[in-house]
């Protein structure tokens, strides 16, 4: 075994603070809607989602919110509420056919209320409906999903389809010292993943591949504020290598290809794909005590514990690190819990596998005792299974 430990540095990605939801506002919005006071209902629903933003009279002026690189406009016009975000403008000579096909196959869909719409050469994600059909739950769903989708389809389309992006929020690149740190993290990460891939191939274990795939995608997402083509390429590969339904050989090959291509990313390419964006709506899910319990206790931890007691420290350590990274990468936590989770990772960083596994095992038990809740073990297992694929 050539790799003896994993580095878990402090993230460059900035922490997104938790803004606890005021559910009373949402309930009042529903009541106002049921009383057919549609203007108040919309105002209250927007206040619920955007507590730090002053909501204007939408009939008089549009509300502009920034979500990563997406600019989302919300306004009332002719008795309807409209929400839109420009994605791209088609250029003559651009790869328009491929771009249009991508929009039709990947962005248009059943099961979502907003859709891509083409006006002239400008393609936007749009949603519009009458005020009388603007139930707050519907508005909240669109406002959570449309900006996120618009943010995900950012500058990478310029490179891939040669379109222009006329109405995007620029994301400031990192300062030089921060970038140097990011570059070191990037290289360390893919180098470690490459070595662990060899271990995965040697062990021929699907469970190991599950953990490694999750770690390869989630750790770097947690550590670096990625956007643009590099994030798009990583996400595209991760769709295959983290897909538990896919054949292991295909996942292995996709992970190997991803590691190879990510390792070849130049400094300039990475520099252009890193930056601290701002988000009007926190894109992370709210972390909960039950999530901590479901991830760090119950059958899931028992299974990791069995690896640890059987002396399979590498697998146990990786599973624990992967779980911690998942909790931090996709969830926002109160400062105290976030700090606790980060401390666990820092303690395990660069430690030999056995020591890292022991440290994190004890840390996880203590974290569940202090920040988890009592959960039916079967529920815990179910939640963990469900959430691990993200």
């Amino acid at each position: 075994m050539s790799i003896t430990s994993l580095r878990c540095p402090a993230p460059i990605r900035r922490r997104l603070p938790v803004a606890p939801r005021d559910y009373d506002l949402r309930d009042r919005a529903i009541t106002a809607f049921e009383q057919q006071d549609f203007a108040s209902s919309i105002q209250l629903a927007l206040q619920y989602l955007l507590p730090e933003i002053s909501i204007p009279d939408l009939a008089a002026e549009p509300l502009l919110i920034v979500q990563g690189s997406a600019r989302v406009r919300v306004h009332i016009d002719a008795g309807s509420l409209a929400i839109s975000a420009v994605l791209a403008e088609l250029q003559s000579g651009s790869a328009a056919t491929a771009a249009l096909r991508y929009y039709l196959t990947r962005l248009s869909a059943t099961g979502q209320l907003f859709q891509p719409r083409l006006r002239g050469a400008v393609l936007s994600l749009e949603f519009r409906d009458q005020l009388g059909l603007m139930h707050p739950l519907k508005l909240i769903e669109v406002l959570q999903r449309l900006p996120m989708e618009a943010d995900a389809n950012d500058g990478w389309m310029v490179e891939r389809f040669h379109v222009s992006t006329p109405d995007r929020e620029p994301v400031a690149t990192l300062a030089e010292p921060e970038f140097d740190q990011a570059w070191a993290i990037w290289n360390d990460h893919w180098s470690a993943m490459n070595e662990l891939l060899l271990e995965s191939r040697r062990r021929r274990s699907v469970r190991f591949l599950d953990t490694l795939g999750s770690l390869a995608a989630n750790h770097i997402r947690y550590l670096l504020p990625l956007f643009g083509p590099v994030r798009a390429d990583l996400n595209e590969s991760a769709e295959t290598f983290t897909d538990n339904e896919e054949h292991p050989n295909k996942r292995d090959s996709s992970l190997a290809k991803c590691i190879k291509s990510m390792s070849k990313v130049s400094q300039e390419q990475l520099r252009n794909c890193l930056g601290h964006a701002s988000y009007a709506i926190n894109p992370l899910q709210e972390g909960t005590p039950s999530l901590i319990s479901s991830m760090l206790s119950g059958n899931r931890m028992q299974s990791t514990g069995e690896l640890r007691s059987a002396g399979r420290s590498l697998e146990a350590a990786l599973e624990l690190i992967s779980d911690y990274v998942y909790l931090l990468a996709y969830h926002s936590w109160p400062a105290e819990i976030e700090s606790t989770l980060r401390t666990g990772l820092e303690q395990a960083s660069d430690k030999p596998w056995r020591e890292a596994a022991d440290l994190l095992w004890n840390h996880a038990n203590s974290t569940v005792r202090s920040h988890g809740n009592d959960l039916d073990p079967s529920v815990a297992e179910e939640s963990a299974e469900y959430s691990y694929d993200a």
Partner: protein
Amino acid sequence: MTPDHDPNQSLDEIDGLGVFQVYTGAGTGSGFLIDQRHLLTNCHVVAPYRQVAVEMRDRTRIMGTVRRLHPYRDLAIVELAHAVNEEVLTLGDGSALRPKQSVHILGFPVGLPLSLTEGVISHAHQLLDEQHYVQTDAAINPGNSGGPILDDQRQIIAVTTCKLTSADSVGFGIPVEDVRRFIDDFRAQKSKFGVQCPACEELIGDALRYCPSCGTDLEAYHEFAEFFDEPDPHPLVNFVESALAKANVDPVLARHGNHNWSFHSGSAPIKVWCCCSEHLNFSSPLAQTGSKGLDQLFQFLLSADHAPFCFDMNGSTIRLNLVVHISDVFASAEHPELAARVTQFVAKANASDNLLIDCYGCSPAPETQTDFLNSPAHQ
């Protein structure tokens, strides 16, 4: 053996046989003709619905009215809205069945078109829950229920009813003697509808608690009263079915299982389903892309003019979609705007396939009713 059929050739062509798919708001199953106007199926396929849809081989559907149920023996007879011409299979002789004898099962497993599976009789008179069944190892899947089990002479020897889910290749059919008796009793039936007592088999015409003939507590066997009432519809079902009715689509004929509907609007196939707890989807796979003029086609499909509808592509199949949020369905009792949207969607789907084929070089989608593409009404 009937003189008309060579046993080696008899099941080569199954499309002409009178075996059809039955649809309700709870699921789908199979059924077979006992004469040109009547279909036999399982009770669990149709109950508690009194009106069901029966799909012909050309995918048109006709209304079926349930006339007789035997919940305990799991049999039902459905009267079709009009006579159909497919071949009526004959009932065979169940007395000579023996293990290892070949059987052929016809039906619509997991909603696929009419399919044949084969196996042998594992036990000719298997006792299970105090009733006898023909046990077979032939593949039985959801959707096969109510279909015929045939012998080599293409005669019905049993009716598919269930399988053990905890075991492999253990399926059961209702013996043909019970089926024959059920049909004979139906032929003598005077009332429009009746349910047989599970104990004495007397036909009961009303939702009674006790059998008037043998005094059995009927509720102890099944929720007997429910056989006499259509199920209380979910608000979502109410919304979809009233909106379809306003769009001149018969909602009973459109039913395709729980919270699913499927029908054709002229040439265009339309499916309606809930993908999650929040969205009700209407989608019509209209056409498949050609190889030329794709820029123009894609620009047309993405045009903002189509709102509130949208086109998307699943592989090379172009679909027209409408998504309704469930909160809209529950927001008020009346939904005139939403119902109007459904009507527009149904009309637009019917018109759009022709447009895509004529103006953008597309070809019909696999489920397009091509006979209707150029009909005057369609134009």
